[in-house]
């Protein structure tokens, strides 16, 4: 319930983005509330300068740190060879509405199984002396995605060829899940029951947020993309954690090295949610692995020269043949397909 006194929290900025949105909606519903808010704000301006002690020095440090990384990313991230002709504009224009959570209504034709799962918070069961809920496991096949809702309001979109395990004690003290593959999390924050995503290379802890975790076994790394809010990233061993903010990309590689890049494109990293596969100057190997997962294929390349290729390409189609021909066009290659097995061969020498 929102009360008049909540206007103070809005004026002072003492709320999370979610709470702010709720109070804003409440204010917008009645012009009288808006007028009152304006008066409170005016009063705040009269009775002292800033509404809160802003941390100028901290913000400067953060920016300086990020700035360095950002600059490094920009200079190092340019494609080795521009592939202007190869860039396929198959994706519909317009930014990806990350906050529009229409996962299921997406026009994408991949099989998306939707289940509503009530993982009863463990403590409720425990309080009533009922037996704890069994562990649950959600598995997607290649080409399949799965939307899972928890009873605490949190939601997960599980990517292709992924596995999400929800242990029996989910919600008892923590809400820890285990992930192999990729998933997008929209977590209902609850400081008393922290939401944790455990993967082989590290743990991601929600601090009130939406984020993407990617940890395919064969990639031997963990990648976390923050869309909104805050996330804490920890190595599997070791207690020190790093704070990630919106548009941060945190990676823990096989050696345990943590890299954080700020200001990444959410549109790019979260394209899969809308059913688009997007690659930006990506090595062919990674592109093929992802196509295998998305279209349930086994792709073989015989041509060594192809493996050095890096490409910028996006796929929105559900038909594997269409995707493969697009890829072949960009690569200047030819493909043959028999059932699941695809052979990719170069037709002209790479310039």
């Amino acid at each position, binding site marked *: 319930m929102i009360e*008049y*006194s909540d206007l*103070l929290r*809005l004026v*002072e*900025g*003492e*709320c*999370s*983005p979610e*709470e*702010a*949105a709720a*109070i*804003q*909606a409440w*204010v*917008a*519903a009645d012009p009288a509330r*808006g007028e009152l808010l*304006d*008066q*409170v*704000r*005016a*009063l705040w301006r*009269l*009775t*002292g300068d*800033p*509404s*809160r*002690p*802003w941390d*100028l020095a901290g*913000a*400067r440090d*953060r*920016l300086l740190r*990020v*700035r360095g990384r*950002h*600059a490094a990313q*920009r200079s190092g991230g340019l494609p080795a060879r521009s592939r202007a002709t190869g860039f396929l504009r198959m994706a519909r224009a317009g930014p990806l*509405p*990350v*906050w*529009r959570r229409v996962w299921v209504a997406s026009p994408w034709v991949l099989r998306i199984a939707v289940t509503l799962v009530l993982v009863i918070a463990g403590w409720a069961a425990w309080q009533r002396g009922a037996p704890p809920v069994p562990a649950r496991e959600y598995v997607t096949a290649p080409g399949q995605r799965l939307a899972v809702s928890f009873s605490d309001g949190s939601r997960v979109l599980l990517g292709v060829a992924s596995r999400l395990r929800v242990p029996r004690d989910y919600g008892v003290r923590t809400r820890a899940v285990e992930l192999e593959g990729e998933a997008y999390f929209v977590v209902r924050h609850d400081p008393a029951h922290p939401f944790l995503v455990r993967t082989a290379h590290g743990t991601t802890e929600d601090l009130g947020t939406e984020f993407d975790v990617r940890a395919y076994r064969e990639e031997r790394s963990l990648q976390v993309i923050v869309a909104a809010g*805050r996330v804490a990233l920890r190595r599997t061993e070791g207690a020190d954690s790093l704070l990630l*903010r*919106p*548009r941060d990309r945190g990676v823990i590689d096989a050696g345990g090295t943590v890299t954080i890049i*700020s*200001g990444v494109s959410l549109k790019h990293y979260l394209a899969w949610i809308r059913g688009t596969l997007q690659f930006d100057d990506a090595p062919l190997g990674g592109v093929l692995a992802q196509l295998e997962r998305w279209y349930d294929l086994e792709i073989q390349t015989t041509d060594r020269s192809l493996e050095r290729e890096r490409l910028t390409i996006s796929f929105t189609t559900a038909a594997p043949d269409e995707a493969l021909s697009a890829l072949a066009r960009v690569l200047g290659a030819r493909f043959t397909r028999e059932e699941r097995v695809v052979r990719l061969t170069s037709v002209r020498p790479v310039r």
Partner: protein
Amino acid sequence: MSEPSFRPRSWTPAPASPRTGAAAWEAAFATCYVELCEYVLRLVGSAEAAEDVVHDLFLQLWDTRGAPGQGRLSRPYLFVAARNRALKYLRHRRVVAAWIERASQEQAPLVDSPEDECLRRELDDAVQRAIAELPSRCREVFVLRRRDALPYDQIAARLGVSLGTVKSQMWRATVRLKERLMPFLAPPVSAKDRPTYHLF
């Protein structure tokens, strides 16, 4: 990532000779960060989100520093760019249209004129009187919050009262002060009276 292209009607040029690159960026950050946060906070209502918006703005300015365009680190530009980012943020969060409308009509803070300075002193007296006339518990809470910037829970601990009491006393103080100072609380400027920059 389009920043506004606009021509403000007038503004006071920066006193120092135009600097470029890192030094200009630093100067703009040091002088405008807090004000921009305050301004964006008004639009988005969350300090966390406000800091993120301003943070992103400065990051983008860093990436494009040295690019042509003299006014890119000027106050008017920063405020308009910050506002556009705040509105974009609100749209992303799908905040009700009425709120976005309100936010888009907010006026960027202007430089105080000498008249403002004069009025300010008169106001300060009135404000101090009004605060002094608050009931004592109310005043204690209000001063700890507004002057000493203590968080609510610390105020509760210090005064030995509940968090709920602190909140209700704060609100009571607000309502009282509002009544007292009503003549000074300028009615919001209507959209028509404002200089308009066409940004969208």
